[in-house]
């Protein structure tokens, strides 16, 4: 450091570097006023040098004993910089002006507080000059706007200069409003500056409020402004109420906007809806007897004679979009006082738009031509999209206050799903479901369960080829069939014990669907050329997966018997398909900006993890396969998937090695059942892919197909059964060492031994098996009355505990010759006990084992009396 003064720097952190560097910049690189133009690269490098090395800060950190010489040198260097920059600003050459103003703007941002406080008013005057002069070059005007904005932002940090700053702000407004009418480039920066001023110095805008409002509204309503720009304008409009900072001002603005939009819609929707709708909303906005608020500028009509066909597209829809965007911003951004939202009107308006599907209303108006309808149908997607954004903003903005309107919004979005076929709309609709679920919690999931599950199943079911783009008919079928099935299934559940046949009939649509899954899987093999385009777009699938994930997070344990098994099965299938697709379709081209297959994979993994973690049972059915997927995913180094997979494995660790104590004394049996999660793979690897409702021929077929498809991965699970039996025995011996899983295992083994009694029935005659099935599927309560012996045995086994348990269990293993068979059988035996066993576990195991049960079951039945 000592050498620094002598001319040699210690290193590049040496503060002496800065004044020197700055002096060099000023002397050698900045042009003289009126001098020639620098190449842009040179300007950029000066800018970079100033910012990287903080040349203008005059900030001497970690130096308690600041070198006065250094401070002096630096100050002099910055003085020189400022002097040169100001000289450039004052120059008559346009280029110099531009360069000077730019660097002045950088100086506002970088310079020391003392310097800024000292010279800001001079700087302000200089830049204001450019804004006021109509003759100044456009580029200079533009850069002046952004410099001015920086000046105000910096000025706002000086609390003692507040008064001065407000007066500055007041002086800026008039010239800025004039600039709004200039061409786009200028208007963009001018509106930015206006926003800065409104935001930071609202009080100084107050005087000009009406002028500002009409200027902005004129812009928003103008058809000449393109969509992106009018969005900026509408955001500024949304900011405007903060000028007056009163509740009335905000509500008035919102109501006026809604009135304008409502009137525009009246014209647009003629013949497509009940004509009283518009009037009804108007009544909500302006209560009878009250004076209507002043209209939001009268400029709408002033656009003159736009052709009737153009009018809707070029005029009505963009204005509605811009105004609704303004509403969205108003609802979601910060406003310093509490405000009232005309919620009924807002919901009614959203309902009005979102439920128009382009079909003609019953009473056909003579004025409604097919042309009109066509024009509206052409624009409906963008209208819907706008209003979905508004709905989104409403939910975000209202938060808990939404509760009284929650049900109507839930109904709206549920109905909307029937209309939403286009991928973008569907995606947005899903995002609203997600928002509702997260914001209002478990109660909402109760209402949204059906809509979410049905739609997600329809979208994710590759077998259904749900086609939402190309024609409406097939999509209707795919969208509705699950819901019908759902309803039927629900009905059936109440009377499930009456007859098994009706149950099977009820789920027949499902059968169709499930049988088509493997076919679709085949369709994904590289050699087939089945249409990839036809299926649901990935973005929609991802949205559906995300929604399922949130549903599982929020209400995963809610009314599980109705939907969990379907969803769990779906998720594991989707995840596996996504992984496989990733392998086989690595070359598949995709569009930029659209999600790739790995995004789908990630989304499916996330949903899968949620399905595991939210499972009401401690060992979810497909856990083993899921872990396998996560393990594989973890190997993909440095990708999002790998990151997520390691997270997932960590999260699942708690599930596989539970640390907490259960809240219930009786553990749901499925957890015991799944203890041998790997053991299940003996037959499980084939069967768990099959729908629970598949009947025998179908399952066989499906299994084959599945095996084709899974040929590459099948070898891994195969080794599991060999490991399994000794593990059970070991674990049983460890039982006294009191971790919960061990204790559960004792129970599990106890059940195994007890089970043969109950298993006798299904294996001996098919006629008897239905009750068992029904009891399991229906609810846990029925198990006890139906299987009394098992229940009592279980109790007795509790008392006996591990020593007795251990002996028969080993016997079980030894009575059968092959090591794999008893394991399969034992899991099979557990299945009927399953107090909360899901459908497919039960059915899958039944159908899967049936072929081998004839020889294996009698063995056990023989062994049964001995075990007691």
């Amino acid at each position, binding site marked *: 450091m000592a050498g620094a003064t002598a001319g040699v720097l210690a290193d590049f952190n040496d503060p002496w570097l800065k004044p020197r560097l700055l002096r060099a910049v000023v002397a050698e690189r900045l042009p003289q006023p009126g001098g020639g133009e*620098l190449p842009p690269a040179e300007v950029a490098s000066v800018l970079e040098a100033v910012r990287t090395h903080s040349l203008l800060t005059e900030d001497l950190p970690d130096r308690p004993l600041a070198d006065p010489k250094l401070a002096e040198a630096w100050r002099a260097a910055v003085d020189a910089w400022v002097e040169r920059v100001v000289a450039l600003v004052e120059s008559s050459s346009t280029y110099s002006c531009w360069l000077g103003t730019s660097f002045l703007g*950088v100086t506002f941002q970088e310079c020391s507080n003392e310097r800024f406080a000292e010279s800001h008013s001079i700087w302000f005057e200089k830049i204001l000059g450019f804004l006021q002069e109509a003759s100044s070059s456009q580029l200079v005007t533009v850069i002046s706007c952004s410099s001015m904005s920086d000046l105000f932002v910096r000025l706002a940090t000086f609390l003692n200069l507040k008064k001065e700053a407000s007066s500055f702000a007041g002086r800026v407004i008039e010239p800025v409003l004039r600039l709004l009418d200039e061409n786009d480039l200028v208007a963009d920066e001018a509106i930015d500056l206006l926003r800065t001023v409104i935001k930071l110095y609202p009080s100084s805008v107050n005087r000009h409020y009406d002028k500002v409002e009409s200027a902005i509204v004129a812009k928003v309503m103008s058809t000449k402004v393109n969509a992106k720009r009018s969005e900026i304008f509408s955001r500024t409009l949304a900011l405007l109420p903060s000028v007056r900072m009163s509740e009335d001002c905000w509500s008035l603005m919102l109501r006026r906007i809604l009135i304008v939009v409502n009137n525009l819609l009246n014209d647009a929707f003629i013949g497509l809806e009940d004509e009283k709708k518009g009037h009804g909303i108007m009544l909500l906005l302006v209560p009878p007897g009250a004076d209507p608020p002043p209209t939001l500028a009268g400029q709408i009509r002033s656009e003159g004679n736009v*052709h009737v066909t153009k009018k809707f597209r070029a005029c009505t829809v963009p204005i509605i979009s811009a105004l609704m965007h303004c509403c969205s911003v108003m609802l979601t951004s910060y406003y*310093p006082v*509490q405000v009232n939202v005309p919620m009924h009107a807002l919901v009614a308006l959203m309902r009005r738009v979102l439920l128009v599907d382009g079909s003609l209303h019953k009473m056909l108006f003579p004025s409604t031509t097919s042309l009109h309808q066509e024009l509206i149908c052409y624009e409906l997607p963008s209208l819907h999209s706008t209003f979905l954004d508004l709905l989104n903003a409403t939910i975000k903005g209202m938060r808990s206050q939404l*509760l009284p309107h929650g049900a109507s919004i839930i109904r709206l979005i549920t109905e909307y799903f029937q209309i939403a076929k286009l991928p973008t709309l569907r995606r947005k609709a899903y995002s609203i479901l997600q928002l509702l679920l997260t914001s209002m919690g478990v109660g909402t999931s*109760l209402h949204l369960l059906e809509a979410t599950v049905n739609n997600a199943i329809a979208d994710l079911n590759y077998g259904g080829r749900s086609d939402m783009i190309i024609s409406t008919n097939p999509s209707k079928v795919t969208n509705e069939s699950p819901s019908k099935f759902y309803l039927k299934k629900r009905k059936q559940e109440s009377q499930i014990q009456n007859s098994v046949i009706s149950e099977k009939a009820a789920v027949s649509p499902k059968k169709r669907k499930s049988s088509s899954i493997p076919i679709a899987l085949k369709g994904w093999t590289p050699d087939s050329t089945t249409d990839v385009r036809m299926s649901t777009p990935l973005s929609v699938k991802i949205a559906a997966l995300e929604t399922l994930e949130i549903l599982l997070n929020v209400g995963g344990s809610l009314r599980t018997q109705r939907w969990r098994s379907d969803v769990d099965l779906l998720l594991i299938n989707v995840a596996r398909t996504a992984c496989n697709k990733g392998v086989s379709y690595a070359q598949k081209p995709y569009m930029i900006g659209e999600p790739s297959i790995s995004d789908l994979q990630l989304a499916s993994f996330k949903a899968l993890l949620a399905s595991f973690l939210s499972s009401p049972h401690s060992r979810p059915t497909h856990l083993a396969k899921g872990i396998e997927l996560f393990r594989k995913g973890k190997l993909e180094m440095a990708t999002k998937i790998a990151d997520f997979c390691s997270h997932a494995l960590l999260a699942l660790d708690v599930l596989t090695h539970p640390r907490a104590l259960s*809240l219930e004394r009786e553990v749901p049996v499925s957890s015991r059942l799944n203890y041998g999660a790997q053991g299940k793979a003996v037959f499980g690897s084939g069967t768990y892919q099959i729908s629970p409702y598949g009947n025998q021929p179908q399952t066989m077929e499906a299994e084959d197909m599945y095996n084709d498809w899974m040929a590459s991965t099948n070898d891994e699970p195969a080794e599991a059964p060999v490991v399994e039996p000794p593990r059970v025995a070991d674990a049983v011996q460890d039982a006294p060492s009191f971790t919960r899983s061990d204790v559960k295992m004792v129970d599990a083994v106890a059940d195994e031994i007890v089970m043969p009694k109950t298993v006798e029935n299904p294996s001996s005659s098919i006629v008897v098996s239905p009750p068992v099935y029904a009891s399991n599927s229906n609810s846990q309560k029925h198990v006890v009355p139906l299987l009394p012996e098992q229940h009592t045995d279980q109790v007795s086994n*509790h008392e006996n505990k591990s020593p007795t348990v251990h002996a028969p269990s080993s016997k079980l293993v030894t009575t059968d010759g092959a090591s794999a068979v008893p394991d399969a059988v034992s899991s099979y035996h557990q299945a009927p006990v399953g107090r909360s066993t899901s459908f497919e576990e039960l059915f899958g195991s039944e159908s899967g084992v049936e072929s081998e049960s004839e020889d294996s079951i009698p063995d056990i039945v023989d062994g049964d009396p001995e075990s007691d």
Partner: protein
Amino acid sequence: MAPPSPSKQLVLAASSVDAGVAAWDLRTGAEDIRLRPCASRPRALASVAGRFLAAAQAPSAGGNSGPIHFFHWEKPQVAVKSFPADPIRALIADDEGSYLIGGASNGSIFLWEVSSGELLHTWRAHYRAVRCLALYDYLLVSGSEDGSIKVWDLITVLDEQSRLEAQTPYLYSFSQHALPVTDIACFLGAIAVSSSEDRTCKIWSLSEGRMLRSISFPTSIDCVALDPRSHIFYAGGRDGKIYVTAMGVDFSSHDCDESSILGALDDHSKAVTSLASSTDGLLLVSGSEDGNVRVWDTRSQQVTRKFKHSQGPVTNVLIVAPKRVKLPPLQPLRKVCSANGEVNSTTVILPRPENDTPIPGNKTSVFMENFLEKLQKHGCSSMLFDSGLNAQNGAPNQQGAEWRGRYLELQDLFVHEVLDQIPSSRDQ
């Protein structure tokens, strides 16, 4: 070393005799403000998202009106008095402080919107008085003197159409408690714990709608508080003991439920009427009929502070972190629902500073960077200023406008053709 000091936390205590609401600083133990008058029965004190305090008053002897008092944190006197149609036994506010829910002594439940004071809905919930309320998301759990516990989905409750569609007005109804339910606490994972005079506490799954477990105690339990980590809960007994109870079951023991009770905090001479657990789980505050409030260190299980409230029994204790925010004037709670739903047509949005988006202060440099980059890409620096204005940005726009114009013309043409041709082809 020291953790960031949290905002001031107050211990509040109210009694069933009129001794006001006493407040002490949880950390220093210094006595804070005393809000008067207040005489509340158990579970009738609610902090509305830390913004203000609501206390339902016990009806005076012979009288039949139990007003609800609102208190600001700074002022010792009542800010707003409301007079509900029936005396409120149990009062609760949601986490955001948007709603106040009161259970009345005739078994009705009232749901008010705090911002407007509007009574959104009132309904008959139980045959006898509602003794305690708890919220999990927007599931309301109410416990009654008749021993029943009902779970309500507020979205359904608040919507007429949903009410009509629902089979039962409630989501679940539990009747496993034999005697009055005294307290309910909800926790993550939709778990609720209820206490009752029948000497049990029961653990419920709100999502599955069933009882998970019942734990017997040697005495009636008047209050429960959950440890924020949810592995244990505290049950205040009529015998003056606070039972530390495990939430989970240890499977290695096959005894009866006694194993769940891990120990007892024993210092109160009379029944423990209310409990509150601090957010970090390290402190437990208990109020007792002996008129004292005790603060316990849950790790050492020792009393760290003892506050004397009054001669009368303490019925409510709360731990609150008062938020001093600028409030719009509090609205008194309405007695009856407005005749038509129209009044409720507006809803408020509270100021949310977190939604604020700051204005960036480096616009010039960002603008310059972009601009210079564009210039370099096009490789024409000097042209820009000589040819005057904005050749760079003007040109593409003009081109775009031109294309757009053509496109629109084409479309008009097409539309007209369609229009003209369809009838004509039909004519042929």
